[in-house]
């Protein structure tokens, strides 16, 4: 098997979790910097602009996920293709769930207040 075909199929298989990872890195890094720098926080519908950026990142991540699922596996055996496709879709579903879950936090908790008692 040609190595690039392997790379293609493996990336496809893990596309969901990889998108999730990048998304997680982005929202965590972004929030970390915004909070560390205490940037001015204009609010809209009760949520700061940084919150809306996080929401936008979530939507973007879901869009990318949807795009990834349009790609087809290259493996020649139909058995493999079915397995790869099924697993890729299921993993993308799990990743989407995690992304939605994490984004919802924006609507539930205030942004930068430290999360400790007292």
């Amino acid at each position, binding site marked *: *098997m040609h*190595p690039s*075909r*392997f790379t293609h*199929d*493996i990336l496809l298989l*893990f596309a969901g*979790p990889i998108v*999730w*990872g990048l998304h*997680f890195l982005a*929202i*965590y*890094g972004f*929030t*970390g*910097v915004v*909070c*560390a*720098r205490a940037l001015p926080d204009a609010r809209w519908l009760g949520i700061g602009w940084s*919150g809306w950026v*996080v929401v936008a990142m979530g939507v973007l991540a879901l869009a990318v996920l949807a795009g990834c699922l349009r790609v087809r596996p290259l*493996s*020649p*055996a139909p*058995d*493999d293709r*079915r*397995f*790869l496709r*099924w*697993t890729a879709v*299921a*993993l993308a579903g*799990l*990743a989407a*769930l*995690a992304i939605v*879950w*994490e984004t*919802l*936090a*924006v609507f*539930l*908790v*205030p*942004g*930068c*207040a*430290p*999360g*400790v*008692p007292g």
Partner: protein
Amino acid sequence: MTKAEALDSARPGNDGELPNPLPRPAEELERLEQAWRYPPGIRVLTEVNNNIIGVLYIGTAFLFFLLAGVLALLMRTQLAVPENHLLAPETYNQVFTMHGTVMMFLFAVPMVEAVGVLLLPNMLGARDLPFPRLSAYAYWAYAVGGLVFFGSLFWGVAPRGGWFMYPPLTSYEFSPGDNADFWLLGIGFIEISAIAGAIEIVVGVLRTRAPGMTLARMPIYAWSMLVVAGLIIFAFPAVILATLLLEVERSFQWPFFIAAKGGDPLLWQHLFWFFGHPEVYIIFLPAAGMVSMIIPAMTGRPLVGYRLVVLALVGTGFLSFGLWVHHMFTTGIPQLSVSFFSAASMAVAVPSGIQVFAWIATVAAARRMRPLKTPMLFVLGFFFIFVLGGLTGVMVAVVPFDWQAHDTYFIVAHLHYVLIGGMVFPLFAALYFWAPYVSRKPLSERIGKWAFWLMFIGVNLTFFPMHLTGLAGMPRRVYTYADHPGWGALNLLSTGGAYLIAAGVLLVVIDMALHFRISGRNAGNVWNAGTLEWLPNGNYASRSIPRVTGREPLWEQPGLPREVEQGRWYLPGAPTGRRETVVTSPIEAEPQYLLLMPGPGWSPLVSALGTAGFFLLLTVKMVLPALLFGVVAIVALLKWLWASDPEPDHPRVDIGGGVLLPVQMTGPSSHSWWAMVVLVIVSASIFGSMVFSYLFLWTVSPDVWPTSTAVLPGWVWPAISASLLLASAMLVRWCNRRLLRAESSTQRSLQAVLGAAVLLLFASVVVEVAGHLSTPVSPTQSAYGAAVYMVGALQAFFVAVVACMGLYTIARSACGMLSARRRQTFDNTRLFWYYAVAQGLAGLALVHGFPRLLA
């Protein structure tokens, strides 16, 4: 129809169509046995075969389990009654630190890899792992280093900062002396062998599966080990960097964790838990994989929901990286950030739940459960204990509850329910299940049942009361306590339970002494299991390598054991007269080439001893002898490498069924290229952790970052450094072109150009460091200086490694061992070279670009 399908459908039971006809030539088996024979006498230590290394590895990990268990008994004895004076506080601190460290790093992680080393090749239908000497090296470094590390306890120099060693407690100010260095050393060995193991596992699982064993037919245990190898590749680099930073802070006073100089102890927590949480899954997923193998064998049913379980393993593996901050809920991180992690912690429950349901469904569909056999008993014990641990896990994932329970015995109870339930019980199940696969006799059912009940009752008796002592406010890591109402009685119960566990474990040890015998033949497929490791086997694994058509080949292809043993499947002998296995393509597992494997030799053992001596002596600051050992390690390593990459002059080999395979292969399909790619990924994650550290320190102490470009080196410095890097990469590229042309006259110029490229690399580091030396910033003065110099130091290390590889390649060329066909050495060097250049450029961009963005 593809070739694979044609073969699949042609196959079933039709004797005439097996790849190799009977009768087999008389000397074939003898030749195979000859190639895989163990060396006699003391030289058996030089054996690298996975059957021996795997058993030694498991035995050593088990020894550490016993040793750490003795420490646990010591602690429990001390805590049996209030105001006890058995152990001095200082000793107690060392004992609990060693117990935690040894259990996590010298027992759990190595055990997981050891079982993989023993089981994977046979389960996949390979003759051995792709890099047997690497496993042997990893094993010996771990065994020697680990035992000396444990010995530090007897000299009173064992670490005492807890298994996660939080600074500033463990920095030079509050932990002078060598104790903390011993911790850093001890886990250094685990870092080395874990990475080596991960390389073996990735390449082994993806490239040495039996023909026809597509990804969709791979045993679940192999999936779990593949995911675990991935976790090691991305998680261990964080702790490697963390230990490096702490050691540098302790030795040279570069302030990474010291708040007064712009450092931050939280940086340690981030790096440690970025590794530490996935670590829990590094321990648990292989155990889950074993359970997924044991249940089908014991119930006579294929695992229900195979694809869902694969999804669960992969999903858990990825999501576990988004959980590290849940160990840091009480450290004042912004609420929104905390909730990302809280949400991810909930999401990870989805795949875990899927796995549990798949197991329950399989058990419910059981065909032959009764009478309950010992392995199944341990699996059921695992369900019970692990689920209870999961429930208390949900409790501590609730942030306000965590504030209450934090650092009390409630956490100790939760942690042990999860670890013992999730890892130790499956492991004992595996021991009873797989013993007949290596031992001449199975272990005793009777003793096994007794051991199970002692351990099961013991664990609950020890740890259940700890929930209550914890809620009653008893803090953890205290060497004694006053007689608060109720504390004394509960603690006494816990201590009694601990002795019950010990009695159970002792029974298992006795059982092994009585029944565990390794001697060529084994007890065979006593459970009537369906996967390939239960084929009849010897030192060479199975006599011939079958083409599989499903997930449980032994159930679906009933004649298989006999056919395999008669040598009617692929590669029934040793056509080259050496040890060899078939390398297959990574997704559909079609044979690609024949991999020649090294036999016994002293170099792995000697270079492991050299490595261990180097680090140990460095820890006690005996620099010169340490260097001596370092040289020994490197010489042995070179000797071992020198023999690899032989001339690919063997004609193609017929492994049967008309399959003609080339011997060895170079370029991107070769197994060594794959190993190199894994190494590059590991290196990139170490560097990634460094970039994170730099940026993190900036977010916490922007005040120590330069506010104007005046204190930065002028832009010419990085510009020159970057050009030197690029130039060296161009030269390597030129050499590559040149080598392809394959005239022997090109070798001279190739050597000269490669030598020049090495010099350019060195020059790039010198220029970069000179640039920083020209500024007033110093590495000891602030976290900024420390971070900048550390990026440079990391680059210097990589350059040194690449330089060694370059010189080695030149030497090979000078000895006429490099050509267009024989070029693995060059290809590997080239790959790592490009990586080092890329890392250098990224480092320059960070160190010189980022502050300019701010200023």
